[in-house]
């Protein structure tokens, strides 16, 4: 038992009866698995392309956390609004942003979803309601509140959903944003992806209170702690929060406990001074993709042939994305000075 688990308390939803897939549509279930697998293979290729020097800057991979993005997006509607931190390739893919456009953005190409001007940390697809990709830890949490404010202002039925890491909750912006969302009864879902480390600083070394969800009591806000390695548990928790937002106009804080299998960014070690190799290996036993695949196989929603087909389908999509990015043109030099101001 890690120190965090021993002291953090809080019931973790996700532990459930023998047949979590009872009543599940097999096609939808396999879709969840495919979405997670796409993120995994996309990120592996992104890491490889980074090592080859074709992706620059900072590149924060999502490997290990796939169930959080996929479970969340499966519970949302197409007109809901999404905002993320800089570790957002996975959420963008799960939201349905084109893998070509994301890879091209990582390559800095004109065909990238942000025209090559944003890069890994600033993935945008406004048509999909995917509003970034923000690089300052905690800085985008008030933006989520603002999007929820706009929804309420227009008396819409949408939900504003924001992702951030557990390190961001020590930031003043988190406190200010959640207080206003609860005060004004806004339709927002705050998803704290607790992957245990803010770069190389463990939660226990940064926060006096280790139970992130418990912070919601400061704002009289509903909260849940969720097993982030269980895609169905995530989907259920987000569904409950979304219903609360749409029907009661109340925000929710979800602490989704997950784990990052890679280093903080591509330039950081996977393990070292801040965590041991053994810990990482131990956590990999909870791999959300392996676990969910096994669950599907147990209830005969997936056979080996279907899995092989899924693997090759995903591999082809990722290969196509890399080829597209590679063959796409650079932005025109004049793009340096476009989009600084909006013409009327």
């Amino acid at each position, binding site marked *: 038992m890690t120190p965090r688990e021993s002291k953090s308390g809080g019931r973790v939803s996700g532990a459930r009866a023998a047949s979590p897939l009872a009543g599940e549509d097999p096609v939808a279930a396999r879709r969840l698995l495919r979405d997670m697998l796409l993120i995994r293979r996309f990120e592996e290729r992104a890491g490889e392309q980074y090592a080859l020097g074709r992706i620059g800057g900072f590149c924060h991979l999502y490997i290990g956390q796939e169930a959080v993005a996929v479970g969340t997006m499966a519970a949302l509607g197409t007109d809901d609004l999404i905002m993320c931190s800089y570790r957002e390739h996975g959420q963008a893919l799960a939201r349905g942003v084109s893998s070509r456009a994301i890879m091209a953005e990582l390559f800095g190409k004109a065909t990238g979803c942000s025209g090559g*001007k944003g890069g890994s940390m600033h993935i*945008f697809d406004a048509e999909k309601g995917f509003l970034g990709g*923000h690089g300052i830890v905690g800085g985008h949490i*008030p*933006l989520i*509140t*603002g999007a929820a404010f706009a929804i309420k202002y227009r008396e819409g039925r949408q939900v504003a959903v924001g992702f951030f890491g557990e390190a961001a909750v020590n930031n003043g912006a988190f406190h200010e944003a959640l*207080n206003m969302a609860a005060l004004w009864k806004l339709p927002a879902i705050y998803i704290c992806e607790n992957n245990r480390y803010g770069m190389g600083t463990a939660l226990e070394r940064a926060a006096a209170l280790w139970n992130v969800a418990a912070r919601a009591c400061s704002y009289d806000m509903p909260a849940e702690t969720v097993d982030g390695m269980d895609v169905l548990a995530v989907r259920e928790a987000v569904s409950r929060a979304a219903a609360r937002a749409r029907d009661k106009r109340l925000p929710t804080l979800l602490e989704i406990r997950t784990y990052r299998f890679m280093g903080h960014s591509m330039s950081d070690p996977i393990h070292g001074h801040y965590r041991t190799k053994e810990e990482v290996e131990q956590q990999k036993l909870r791999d959300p993709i392996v676990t969910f695949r096994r669950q599907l196989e147990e209830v005969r929603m997936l056979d080996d042939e279907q899995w092989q087909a899924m693997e090759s389908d995903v591999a082809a999509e990722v290969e196509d994305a890399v080829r597209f990015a590679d063959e796409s043109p650079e932005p025109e030099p004049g793009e340096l000075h476009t989009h600084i101001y909006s013409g009327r």
Partner: protein
Amino acid sequence: MPTLTYRDALNQALREEMRRDGRVFLMGEEVGVYQGAYKVSRGLLEEFGPMRVVDTPITELGFAGVGVGAAMAGLVPVVEFMTWNFALLALDQIVNSAAKMLYMSGGQVKMPIVFRGPGGAALQLASQHSQAFESFVANVPGLKVVMPATPADAKGLLKSAIRDGNPVVFIEGEMLYNTKGEVPEGEYTIPLGVADVKRAGKDVTIVAHARMVSVALKAADELAKDGIEAEVVDPRTIRPLDVATIAASVRRTNRCVIVEEGWPFAGVGAQFAYDVQREAFDHLDAPIIRVTGADAPMPYNKSLEKAAKPDAAKVAAACRQVLYRD
């Protein structure tokens, strides 16, 4: 034409724009029930209700970010800071979120938002409440910076700022709210990026903005007694800067004094001076002189405070210096 105070001109602009466009809303500390710390928002809560005139907790970073998020989702927020001194807490949202959103999204996410409130020194408010921040924000591509000096400019520029579709930093004069002037009724807008010659003259150009315009005009009155005709040019918008109007004036007068309330090092006046020498070098008969606030935090003591601020006597002295008549 009716005579209004600067605060009522701003109030009129807000009211007209909120009537015109249902997406426009005002948020900030004490803007609603209290009617505004400086009464700029008087009566707006009653007319538009609490969803459009939003009282916030004291959390500049937080509510500036809420404004940015609301703009991303299609609204047109006017975010009021009780003073710009408090807005430093929100600088991350203004610079990292608002100014760059359009650019880093490859043109997808527009950012129609106005950040407004009083700046500059008032009277004996000491170091943390008497500061001019235009140089901080004017440095940032993606922001526009507007600083009206008169009630008419306040109205016309605020209406344009709200309609601009870009993040606009709108710095009002804390000492100007009670000043009066003629203000056109109804639809009256002034384009951003257009300077105004506040007084014509042929001997020296004084470039001054915000409260420094009245200081410059007073200096011009003093100089007139000695037969010196000073021209006062008010840029009104710091970014984009109307270099053409300023340079045209300098080409006529051949001399230039630049006045600003802020600190001297890397102040906006340094940029103005660079632009003037680039555009009118052959027309200058003397080096440009800047008159700025003292290079020190603002002291509380009345006489020290007076010494720290630019005033008409200092501006007049600088004009005599560039005319070699000191």
